[in-house]
């Protein structure tokens, strides 16, 4: 699960890369993906469509972020969630709820709870550890995903405290964007699948228009994450990353 944020971040920040002539080492591919996580700043508005069994709901938000250690998100709709703000500073996360006019810190096991009922947890939002640090990657072959040639990477955890014991990632051979990812339990059961659609090039960067997260154990259409607009290297006032900005 935590890779989703890492994926999203990498997808948003990836620089175009030229496909090497021969099959690179799996760790090398991961490092290139990790390298893409570093960025100065970005501001984007997004739409999260959560498909339940009977109905769907849409949550819109605007996010300002500096690197991957500071982020401020304000929810814009639906009316029930509008005005809710979330601040991430290093390893801490706070949420302000306008209905209660209170700011609470999300910590401990609360981090495992779902964000706005989606397939993403607060823990996923907080995750910024390097994939190369957590997994040992092996290139197992090449496959086409949505018409794009990809490296298929098998990732096995090298640390004990990772959320998923293994993953399988399909990385675009030219753009170094993960186009598909499967997350597995220790037993080998497929738990979640992430797919990226509508990859566009903006301001010289490749970024996804839509990411679909799906819990493979349950029925339902998963959660769609749609980037509506994005601005790279925008000027973000520093006071936005303070608790005072939540109210």
């Amino acid at each position, binding site marked *: 699960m935590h890779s989703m944020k890492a994926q999203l971040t990498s997808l948003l920040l990836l620089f175009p890369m030229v496909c090497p002539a021969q099959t690179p080492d799996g760790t090398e591919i991961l490092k290139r993906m990790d390298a893409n996580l570093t960025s100065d700043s970005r501001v984007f508005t997004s739409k999260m469509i959560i498909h339940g069994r009977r109905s769907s709901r849409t949550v819109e938000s605007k996010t300002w972020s500096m690197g991957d250690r500071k982020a401020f998100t304000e929810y814009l709709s639906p009316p029930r969630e509008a005005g809710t703000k979330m601040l991430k500073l290093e390893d801490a996360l706070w949420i302000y709820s306008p209905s209660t006019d209170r700011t609470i810190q999300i910590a401990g096991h609360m981090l495992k709870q779902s964000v706005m009922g989606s397939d993403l947890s607060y823990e996923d939002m907080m995750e910024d550890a390097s994939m190369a640090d957590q997994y040992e990657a092996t290139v197992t072959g090449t496959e086409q995903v949505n018409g794009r040639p990809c490296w298929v990477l098998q990732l096995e955890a090298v640390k004990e405290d990772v959320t998923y014991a293994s993953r399988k990632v399909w990385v675009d051979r030219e753009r170094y964007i993960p186009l598909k990812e499967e997350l597995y339990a220790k037993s080998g*059961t497929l738990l979640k699948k992430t797919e990226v659609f509508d990859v566009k090039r903006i301001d010289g960067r490749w970024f996804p228009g839509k990411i679909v997260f799906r819990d493979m154990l349950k029925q339902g259409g998963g959660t769609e994450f749609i980037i509506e607009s994005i601005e790279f290297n925008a000027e973000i006032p520093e006071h936005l990353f303070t608790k005072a900005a939540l109210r």
Partner: protein
Amino acid sequence: MTAIKLAYRNLIGAGLRTWLNVIVLSFSFVMIIWMKGMLDGWDRQARIDSIEWETGGGQYWHENYDPYDPFTFEDSHAPLTPEQENLWQKGKLVPVLITRGTIYPGGRMQNIVIKGIDVNQKLLSIPTARLDTSVYGIPAVVGSNMAQNSRLKKGDRVVVRWRDANGTFDADEVVITGIFNTTVPSIDAGQIWIPLKDLQRMTLLENEATLLVRDNTEAPMPAFAGWKFMEQDELLKDIETIIKSKTAGTSVFYMILLLLALLVIFDTQVLSVFRRQKEIGTYVAMGMTKKEVVTLFTVEGGMHAVLAVVVGAVYGIPLFIQQSTQGISFGLSGQDIGITMAETLYPLYSMELVISTIFIIVVATTFVSFIPARKISGMNPTEAIKGKIQ
């Protein structure tokens, strides 16, 4: 003694009026015993069931464990000490490991609590022997309420997902090897029971437990550092609270019943004192003191309660015997409302309950009989014997 004989003759002589009063009073009397017996029966049954299915003779909780806060589960477990293991082997303790998980019955996601328990335990009524079987997957038993809510049947396979001690996700299939019926919702709703060894292996918590259930005996048990002992009474406190609140609620009903019956007695007494003035005057003229006449009238009133006990016993005893042996079913299980209550309740009519109710009714009836009778002491006997209204 004279007053009692005379009062009895007067009452029987009054015929239908007396019997109407007695029947009304006996009805209140039977109703009060019936309702109290029902609550006492529920209390006894709930306690016995809770002890047999859940609490045992008390529990040792890991110091961080809070059953009302599932977020504490991940941090509330500790390895068993050699002493605890020894008591476990002797059947005096049963370790239970608790963690959170998710099951996906029919593709629906459902958050649950996974409880690991020794398959060979005999201390609790949970049918853990059904976990001692060889199946492809993890054997699990669930309560009928959980089975119904999750649409699970015996033999069903369902995917369960959990996190190990390091927070890494894992998933496997559990096989429902048994479904048990219990009146204790706290071991049924939203949880599955699997072998302790399996859960310890799944969560990487070898030889660890969240709580230890002790046997239901008075035998002394040592204290364990890092574990807090929860007395049986403390664990049964919820039942006591529910019964207390129910008792308070039904007390209003008793009061109304009793007040109506006492009002009837009071009215009868007022009417007697008013209409039987010649008789009162005659008693005094024949040498009875006013105090004795007041006593006679008070005994007459109080005797209604005694007759009501006899009449109530005539139809009440067969009714109580039938209900306490066959039980009363309201067609509603405590599981449906989340409290420990069997679908069929067996009322408990203790001697203490019957005697205390008789005592209260006799005293109350005598008291309300005395209030109008006091007026006699202020009467002029000459005027009374003439039948003049005073």
